[in-house]
């Protein structure tokens, strides 16, 4: 825990939030699993949604996030 605490300012300086940071850590842990469990764990955590920003009461073109490795 202490070593992770020491690294905190660096990931914050890189523009990451705690959520991104913990997601990257979680992905690392998931990749440490042995094979049948690893594929299962990775396929379970799939990201897909479409997000659109609104400017002046109108939606902009939605961006679709659907790659699990993209953070």
């Amino acid at each position, binding site marked *: 825990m202490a070593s992770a605490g020491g690294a905190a300012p660096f990931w914050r300086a890189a523009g990451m939030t705690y959520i991104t940071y913990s997601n990257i850590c979680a992905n690392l842990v998931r990749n440490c699993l042995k094979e049948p469990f690893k594929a299962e764990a990775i396929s379970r955590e799939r990201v897909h949604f479409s997000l659109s*920003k609104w400017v002046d009461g109108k939606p902009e073109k939605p961006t679709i996030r659907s790659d699990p490795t993209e953070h």
Partner: protein
Amino acid sequence: MAMAALRREGRRFATPLLSSPIRSSLISHSQEQAPNGVRSISTQVVRNRMKSVKNIQKITKAMKMVAASKLRAIQTRAENSRGLWQPFTALLGDSPSVNVKKSVIVTVSSDKGLCGGINSTSVKISRILHKLSSGPEKETKYVILGEKAKAQLIRDSKDDISLSITELQKNPLNYSQVSVLADDILKNVEFDALRIVFNKFHSVVQFMPTVSTVLSPEIVEREAEAGGKLGELDSYEIEGAETKGEVLQNLAEFQFSCILFNGVLENACSEQGARMSAMDSSSRNAGDMLDRLTLTYNRTRQASITTELIEIISGASALEG
């Protein structure tokens, strides 16, 4: 048997009276043809309606089954995810009445309809919150999850929408997805307090519209100085080289993603439950309707048979006499 033959006979006389294309399109698939209002009353319309009601009932029954099986899968996940926000509420408390300048209302709804009133409930609560938290020098924005709340809020408050997110439930809901989403929300809106509105799942027929409040680290610090529940934060020892502000920021971010995860799951669970009960009652309604239609149909049929019989008998007696 003889009667049926006679009736068919009568029909043959009646045929030229009807324009053939309409007639063939109307009754091409039925065996027991009835000409439209010539000698007997047509049962065609009633029969068609019975058929369509029966089909609708089949569909609603199937949808109920689907919703029930989805509900079972998602209910355990929703109940397990409650363990994620409970420690946060124990630590930071939930302060829905906090007075801040920039509030963001995160309305959780579903992408699909036919699930009772859960979407209107969360939209209603969001509107009330918006009214409560807006005022001079205050800014309140909406972040909308799901297609249905967007469709409702776009009508009267489209200027206050800052983000809308859809297609969340394409894959089974999972934490990575919701946390990436939470991350995107945090990056795109400025907030002092996030208010997440969702339907909390109690039972298949009971959902509580719920508001969870996530405060920004500055507000947490301000509230902590004011005392109360948050005043106890100082009694915690902080490990490592971090300052209290950093820890609070991390906590606020993580709290938001956890609460959002729980909210999304609870809402999905409520959605399936509401859909199940809605589909159950609509199957029942379809059954009632079918009963009524069957009664009408049988009555009309009997009436026409009686009429025909009377005609035949009186015709025969006229010949005899």
